């Protein structure tokens, strides 16, 4: 594998990681909105500890 190929691969991995992080932000926010208000505090505490 050339240096250029390795660079392209590193970019693809970085993109995949960034996409995953964004998806997770979106999923956590959406999921929290569906949880009953009473449970939201404890769930947030566990999620963000």
């Amino acid at each position, binding site marked *: *594998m050339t240096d250029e*190929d390795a660079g*392209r*691969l590193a970019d*693809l*991995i970085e*993109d*995949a*990681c960034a*996409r*995953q*992080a964004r*998806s*997770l932000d*979106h*999923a*956590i926010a*959406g*999921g929290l909105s*569906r*949880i009953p208000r009473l*449970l939201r505090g*404890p*769930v947030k505490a*566990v*999620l*963000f*500890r």
Partner: protein
Amino acid sequence: MTSRTVETDTALAKLARALEVEPSELDFLADVRLEHLRDLRWCITDTLGAADAKRLNGVVAASKLVPTALAAAIGEKWFGPVLCARLVGLVEPKRGAQYAKHLGVAFMADITARTDPRVAGELVKELELPTMQAIAVTLVERGDHLTLSHFVGHLPPEVVAAILEAIDDNAAVVRIARYVEDLGHLDPVVALLPDARVVALVQAVDDDDLWVDGLRLFSHLGDEQITRVATTIVRLDSATVAAALEAFDRHDLWDQGLQLVEHLDPGDLATFADVLLVLDDPVIDAAIEVIDRREAWPVLVRIALAAEGLNGEVRARLGEIVERLPRSRIERFEQAAADLGHPGLIATTLRGIAPELEPNHSVG
């Protein structure tokens, strides 16, 4: 760039799925060695898992605080298959099986397509067989043979065999098998299949002209299962044997084909010889080339011995074939015959077939 093989395409397709990109975006990796592509995929999967490990573990911990049905619904609506696939290896297997009861089969198939098979083993132990079968059937209906192949080496053979019971598309089973990375994993699965299923698989190979894939797969089986498959082919009917031989020739698969032939018993070898020996000279010559290269002369000796019981026309044809062999090959044939306890096979047994052929007779 070297020519692309099925194995390379498969490895790139799997890598593309790990990165959530189109396989064509990874064409620049086509020359990388297969084992490196596989290691790369595991490395990328681990990297993606590690990138958000703290938050993903937080999600798993938080999910225990809400009812299972609600957690499953949130997973399906908000997390989606890619993130849920990341959670497969983190969630307690028993809890994962509980979630599965609240998830749609299509969604679970989506998750499966993105799950790292290395971490699915414990969950599989908890999942009910009908659930796994339903997921597998959905993936087959989608034509997603790649995903199913991904799991073959990571699940116990008995689980794979049990899942296959639900897949009645035999050609699909062959297509799944073609993508299995380590073909050594197929043997224990095939060993668990009933004879009727092996017959159906061979029939599907013939009906859908999947001989290239089929022979590649069969040739990786252990002796017992190769014998089972070879015997099945020969006993199906002479048309199937003819189709197999035609495929050996058309796709240059004599190496794999001879591996099957080597496992036939004398009775089945006679059936095989009956079809083989009436083929045209160029086809026979191609087979002889491979026999010579593989030093597989005992096979031809066994075919000659099996042909003794066949009709005169077939035996005469065998005589012609042997007669056309160059002297050096006749010597190797004779030596193989002597090694198998039939010294002077040409001079004695075949003399009546090719009377002009004497031990010192030289052709070509």
